[in-house]
């Protein structure tokens, strides 16, 4: 458990009694606390684990390299979550363009990462989630996976609270339809 955070030389340093009073910097602390949840968030927004890792690592690099501009250290998680959402959108958009331009693969050609994503591929919810609209997916993931309030989701996505409610209810309905289709 990290206690008594102190600012020394621009880096947040805290002592970890359980780890033998080891001082860790802000990057390590943020990594330990939030990297896993952000990786899962990216996995729900994207459709492959490799892209999830890239997106979360890029978000960590961007936020921590510009850490001097972060006025409130408590908001680092919010910055990281916002960056992950934005990078996920960019990745999906780029992938869609690539899919349009790239030649279609042979029918019997297996994906290189096929074995690594077996766990995700077998989950019907993940499959159904990838089939709904991007806005609905973002609202559902942020609302029910990241446990953000409607106001926080609205602020993060840059939309109104009413839009969050609308995207949420329509997303749940679309998800239900797709889940029943899988059965």
């Amino acid at each position, binding site marked *: 458990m990290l206690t008594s955070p102190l600012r020394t030389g621009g880096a947040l340093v805290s002592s970890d009694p359980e780890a033998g009073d080891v001082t860790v910097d802000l*990057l*390590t602390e943020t*990594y330990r606390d939030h*990297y*896993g949840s952000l*990786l*899962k968030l990216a*996995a*729900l927004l994207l459709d492959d*684990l490799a892209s*999830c*890792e890239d997106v979360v*690592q890029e978000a*960590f*690099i*961007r936020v*921590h*390299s*510009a850490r001097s501009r972060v006025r409130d250290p408590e908001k680092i998680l919010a910055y990281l979550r916002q960056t992950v959402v934005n990078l996920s959108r960019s990745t999906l958009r780029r992938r869609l363009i690539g899919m349009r331009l790239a030649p279609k693969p042979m029918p019997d050609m297996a994906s290189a990462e096929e074995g690594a994503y077996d*766990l*995700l591929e077998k*989950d019907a*919810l*993940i499959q159904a989630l990838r089939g709904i609209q991007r806005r609905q997916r973002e609202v*559902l*993931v942020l*609302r*029910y*996976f990241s*446990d953000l309030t409607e106001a926080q989701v609205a602020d993060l996505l840059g939309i109104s609270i009413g839009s969050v409610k609308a995207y949420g*209810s329509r997303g*749940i309905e679309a*998800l*239900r339809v797709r889940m029943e289709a899988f059965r």
Partner: protein
Amino acid sequence: MSAPDKDDGLDEVGAALRERLHQAVSGLEPGPGTLDYLRRAVPARRRRRHAALAATAVSVFAVSAGATLAARGSFDGRASQANGTNVGNLMTTATNDAPGGGSGRGPATSGGQNMDPGGSGATQLPSSSASASGSAKPPQPASSPLATPSGSQLIGACQNSSVTSVVATQTSVTGGVTYETFAGTARTACTLAGMPGLNVAAAGGVSSVNIPIYKADPTVAPLLSTAPGGQTLTLLPGDRFEFQIAWVPQGCTSTPPPTSPPSSVPPTSGTPTVSATSSGPTPSGPTSSPTGHPTPSGTPSSSAPAPVTYSVAYSVYGTDLTQSASFTASCGAAVYVTNYFEDQGQRRQGQLPTAPASGH
């Protein structure tokens, strides 16, 4: 279905969705070595960002500096093409002795305009001074700006503030003629041209209007020759300059002294030609020299008045006196002065003034 029932239904769906979402990604863990990669990547990204910022700043500074230099270069080029109205002329013609005035190289418009009033006001100073006290105050020549040997910098005319330690040394007294050498050292780079500005004042309230100042005339008083004659003397910091004057007392005769400078003195702006025009008290007529200059050939009569002490003061520029030398004369005198020349000790020692060629 009532609203609470609908909310309960949404809550149940939400709870189930929340549980299913967490369950779906529960097996995801960060890859090995991710933290080490981030620890290396964050400082590297920061360094790249700083390097990019520094490169951008340097580029912006270089472009702006280049543009500024180019603009100034084109402006100076235009100014130098305009005859008589460029920066150097405006600054060097100014005769006020403001600190730094004329020795700097400021912006053409502001510097020139600031110095212009001083220059116009001071150009009338020598004539008014001469008419009031009868002494000559040769105007400083309006030298054009000169370039250093490298040709990269303009040098203005010397001011009092740009010259230090002017020393007046009496070289010799021969045949009643007193030779005085003024030597000075330049503090900053500046130029001198023509004859130095002298101001003759009499002690005890005696008018000094009968003390004309002439250009050096070897037939009257063989002063040191200036070489190269007539050229502008460019002084660098530490360089020494000299000029020499000859004090030629007049004899107490009844003949009035000459009231006009000899025609041989060129009335150029670079040489002082102002002389006393009003008649002095009981002037003594000098014997005429071949050039019409007064010579110290007059023999004082027995009823000659008591000697009067005169002070010949030198000013590099303006009216602030820099150095002075005292002389005596009973019935007036004349001052002959050389142009500025470089301090050459050997030449001065080898050309000690001899006796006047005429009048004795």
